[in-house]
């Protein structure tokens, strides 16, 4: 008996050590990047990558990234675009989600399944026609191209599903009293129902913003003007242009990662919730 207990304890310990080792391999590359973003190019190429401490500390990498390469502009562009898209998605998708949860109309199930079905459609099929449409509308190199079509992506469907599930979980009586009193359906939705869905709205906002922040292929295709680039496209663009100046590039990379890291640390549970819903939404 004592041996079995010992065996289990040793097994547990080994497992724990393994998990710690795994965690280090997950965290170390990010830590390395943050430290390396303060190193000089000479130090980066000195053949001692495991020496984390920047010597000397070169904060100019960030100044250069901000001035010489317009990373500040990239950050603002991304913030503005991802923010707008997320807000629109929340408005449009929660309206649709409400309708699917609460209202009866002919064709409801078919439309619902069709919308969910778009999650299974790989983005590359719609890429070329949408690009052609942008050219036709003369939206290439305009913010509209990054703001309007992007609203209707898979995150919008995920959010719609998330909101629908949430509406189903709150009692109907909440808005029905108001509707009987003559309040319009939209007003009841806007002033009574929506304020009661804050947890779902937060989840939606977080996953929407994260998707917008990280999106790459579409902004890569529709924007050539450096001033209008998003952070991810800007980062990859400047890899080609200032390929020798890795200190600046790593400063840019850090700027692309750290905001996500902060948001993740604060709102972790919303990330997980949104993901689990999107995971099961497609089922």
């Amino acid at each position, binding site marked *: 008996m004592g041996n079995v207990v010992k065996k289990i304890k040793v097994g547990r310990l080994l497992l724990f050590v393994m998990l710690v080792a795994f965690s280090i391999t997950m965290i170390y590359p990010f830590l390395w990047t943050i430290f390396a973003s303060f190193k000089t190019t000479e130090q980066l190429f000195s053949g001692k990558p495991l020496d984390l401490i920047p010597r000397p500390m070169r904060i100019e990498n960030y100044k250069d990234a901000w001035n010489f390469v317009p990373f500040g502009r990239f950050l603002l562009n991304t913030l503005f675009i991802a923010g707008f898209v997320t807000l629109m998605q929340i408005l449009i998708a929660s309206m649709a989600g409400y309708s699917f949860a609460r209202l009866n109309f002919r064709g409801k199930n078919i439309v619902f399944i069709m919308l969910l079905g778009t999650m299974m459609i790989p983005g590359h099929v719609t890429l070329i026609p949408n690009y052609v449409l942008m050219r036709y509308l003369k939206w290439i190199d305009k913010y509209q191209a990054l703001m309007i079509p992007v609203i209707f992506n898979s995150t919008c469907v995920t959010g719609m599903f998330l909101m629908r599930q949430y509406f189903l979980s709150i009692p109907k009586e909440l808005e029905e009293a108001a509707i009987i009193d003559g309040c319009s359906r939209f007003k009841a939705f806007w002033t009574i129902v929506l304020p009661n869905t804050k947890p779902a709205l937060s989840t939606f906002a977080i996953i929407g913003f994260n998707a917008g922040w990280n999106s790459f292929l579409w902004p890569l295709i529709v924007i050539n003007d450096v001033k209008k680039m998003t952070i991810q496209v800007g980062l990859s663009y400047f890899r080609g242009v200032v390929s020798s100046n890795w200190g600046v590039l790593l400063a840019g990379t850090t700027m692309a990662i750290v905001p996500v890291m902060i948001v993740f640390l604060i709102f972790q549970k919303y990330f997980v919730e949104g*993901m689990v819903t999107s995971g099961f939404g497609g089922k």
Partner: protein
Amino acid sequence: MSLPLKISAHEEMIGTKRGFSLARREEITGWLFITPMLIGFIVFSFGPILASLIISFTDWDLLQAPKFVGFVNFAKLFKDDYFIQCMSNTLYFVITMVPIILVVAMTLAIILNQNIRGKAFFRSVFYFPSVVSTVAISMVWLWVFSPSDNGLLNTILHKIGVMNTPDWLGNIATVKPSLVLMRTWQSAGYYMVIFLAGLQTISPELYEVADIDGASKWEKLIHITIPLLSPVTFFVTIMLMLAAFNIFEAIYVMTEGGPGGATNTIMYYIYHNGFRLYQMGYASALAWVLFLILVVLTIIQFKLRKEESQ
């Protein structure tokens, strides 16, 4: 869905007064609420799918009017050596990445579903890389794989005595496994969280009954956990497959299809044809072939799953 066939006289009276019956009003409101989303998806999703098919039958460089060419693009595709190379590279990623990430994610989930000290911490740490953009992660991993003394992986290998280290991304033999490693590192945590959610739905009573029967840990895993996870496993397999077929960003940033075309994937080839060569017709044909492959594979998986559960 069912509409009341007979509306009470009273309701009818109100209804006619306002011009609509109540059910009819609800119907209109229902459609109005979904209209913005529906229009958006018709314009930017359903319409483009159809348009993509039409464009695939044309020769179109965006400068001149599209010329209808019938099946020429599709015929060209099967004689295109690059296409065949891209397809086989893509299949390599699908065949390696799907099972590897699946097994890693499921194992991590099963381990972290137990009472282990710091499990919340481990879960967050494993999950974190999947919320970071692939572009940023690729920039970081360029340094991990860097061939000279400046690369993290090779430096560590040198430290532990492995001297003959390859140029991971510059060598045809190692570039694909390197990308598989990076993608596993990046996304296993994401699927782990989905598996964890699935594990929550398994009733603890089943394990209690098994304990009474004297089942070992291993037996419980084989006979309870894995079978009951199968809906989640199925779902994760499809998601992984879609992700592996669509691999693009890591290749765009890290290898640009090289060395020697070893990482030319179908998605990268679509991008190349569409947005570097402006061959909209051919790129659309490629996109549709990839789409059809995905549809067929998904249907096969659904069928297999149905048979399994019967």
